[in-house]
């Protein structure tokens, strides 16, 4: 650890700009709403469990959308569920991000043609930041999606320039 094992002669100041500090904090702790929809939720659970271990990327599942930054839409969104998903999304505090996991939430997936009760893509009700393809996506694919999201967070600024 570059900084921590050095002894500071005077008081321990680190000089940085606010933007960098905020980004560092935001990228390192993306909290996710515990919300499973269908098959993909099982792969999401597998990603968060022992073998793939989400936590090492700073992703902690939170039971309430009001405490979380990230919503992973993991599964088929039906018409009955769509309004509830919108409501869950609206309960999240800004800045908030959405990963659409799997073909179903990307575009309707295998239910595209005959699924009269399936929403053809969750992006019709809420904005999506990262799409993860697959039916269901492997845990590695979800992790890749997460890293892409982190890239996105690292490239945006919360500071308003004058």
């Amino acid at each position, binding site marked *: 650890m570059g900084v921590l094992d050095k002894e500071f002669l005077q008081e321990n100041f680190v000089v940085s700009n606010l933007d960098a500090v905020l980004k560092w904090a935001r990228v390192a702790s993306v909290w996710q709403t515990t919300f499973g929809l269908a098959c993909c939720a099982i792969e999401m659970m*597998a990603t968060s*469990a022992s073998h793939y271990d989400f936590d090492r990327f700073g992703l902690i599942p939170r039971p309430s959308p009001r405490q979380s930054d990230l919503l992973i839409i993991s599964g088929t969104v*039906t018409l009955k569920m769509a309004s509830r998903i919108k409501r869950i999304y609206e309960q999240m505090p800004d800045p908030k991000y959405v990963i659409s996991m799997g073909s179903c939430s990307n575009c309707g997936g295998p239910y595209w043609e005959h699924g009269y009760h399936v929403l053809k893509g969750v992006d019709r009700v809420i904005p999506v930041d990262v799409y993860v393809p697959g039916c269901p996506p*492997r845990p590695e694919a979800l992790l890749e999606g997460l890293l892409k999201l982190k890239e996105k967070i690292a490239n945006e600024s919360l500071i308003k320039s004058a």
Partner: protein
Amino acid sequence: MTNIIESKLKTDEMVLNMGPQHPSTHGVLRVELKLDGEKIVKADSHIGYLHRCFEKHCEAMTYPQIIPYVDRMDYLAAMSNELGYVLAVEKLLKIEIPERVEYIRVIMAEFQRIASHLVALGTFGLDTGAFTPFLYTFRDREKILTLFELTCGARLLYNYIWVGGVSHDLHPDFIRLAKEFIEYFRPKVVELNELLTYNKIFIERTANIGVLPPELAINYGVSGPSLRGSGVKWDIRREDPYSIYDMFEFDIPVGEGLAGTTGDCWDRYYVRILEMEQSLRILEQALDQIPEGDVSAAVPKRVKPIDGISYARVENPKGELGYFIISKGGLQPFRVKVRPPSFVNLSVFSEIAKGHMVADVVAILGSLDIVLGEIDR
């Protein structure tokens, strides 16, 4: 003193909606609870949040095309779903299946049973407040998924068991690795027992909670571990053997009320643990006896059964899964009706949740082990 306070205190019934976004409803189930204080007066479950039009799809797809949709019903036990569907189609076609295929199917179904039970036990631990067992069960489940991946390339939804056979033969290493897994997994069941089963807090949360009397279970048509937890010895593998299950020796564990009353949440949980051991027994026998041979029967590329109806039922990890198929001689079935175990098992929920606390709802739902993909279809 208490009497006076109670008579003066006027309380209203409160309606509490649990779900569809709730960490412990095992998917998108909404439970409408009518509460008197913290006691449940009435519990209604509202379903349909994951209705994916399975039966409609079946009318538009050819017989082999339906298999991937069958996977996505009970997504924790895709292999077992495929087996049931394929058996029903094969009944219509009246074809002979090579012996090796039957063995492969049984091996896959039993591995799937263990994998599904591991998820059920792990998440049941989560529901009752124990996080660690979840990590342990998922560690072991990953090993089964690796075996499946070796066989057909997929981790969760396989499309492996086909009409008249299976899509690929087993990998040359499969039998060795499967045997290694059985060796590895035996002591892990003991570990899980030490972690969770005999844990005092866990027993307090689950014993004498949600007692399902055997008569009630039978009247509601409950099946699978939930029925056997009530002490009823009923298993399709024994009562109405399909595939080659009549060739194997195994016991049917039933709940005995070791921690509390027979048929409580703990019993339903414990039956699953015992069933995993029985599955290991079946697997050992099947892996030893598996013959060489073809992995697909002579089935025409275009599966086109004659007019007729067929019904096949299998013992899924969740219970009795049945497929009713009507064929009118075309490439597509005229109608496919599913008898899902989770849907029937959920129907008993409002009956047994009455009079319990809100926190017990979670335990009861977890012990019934429902999958919403199968309930809503």
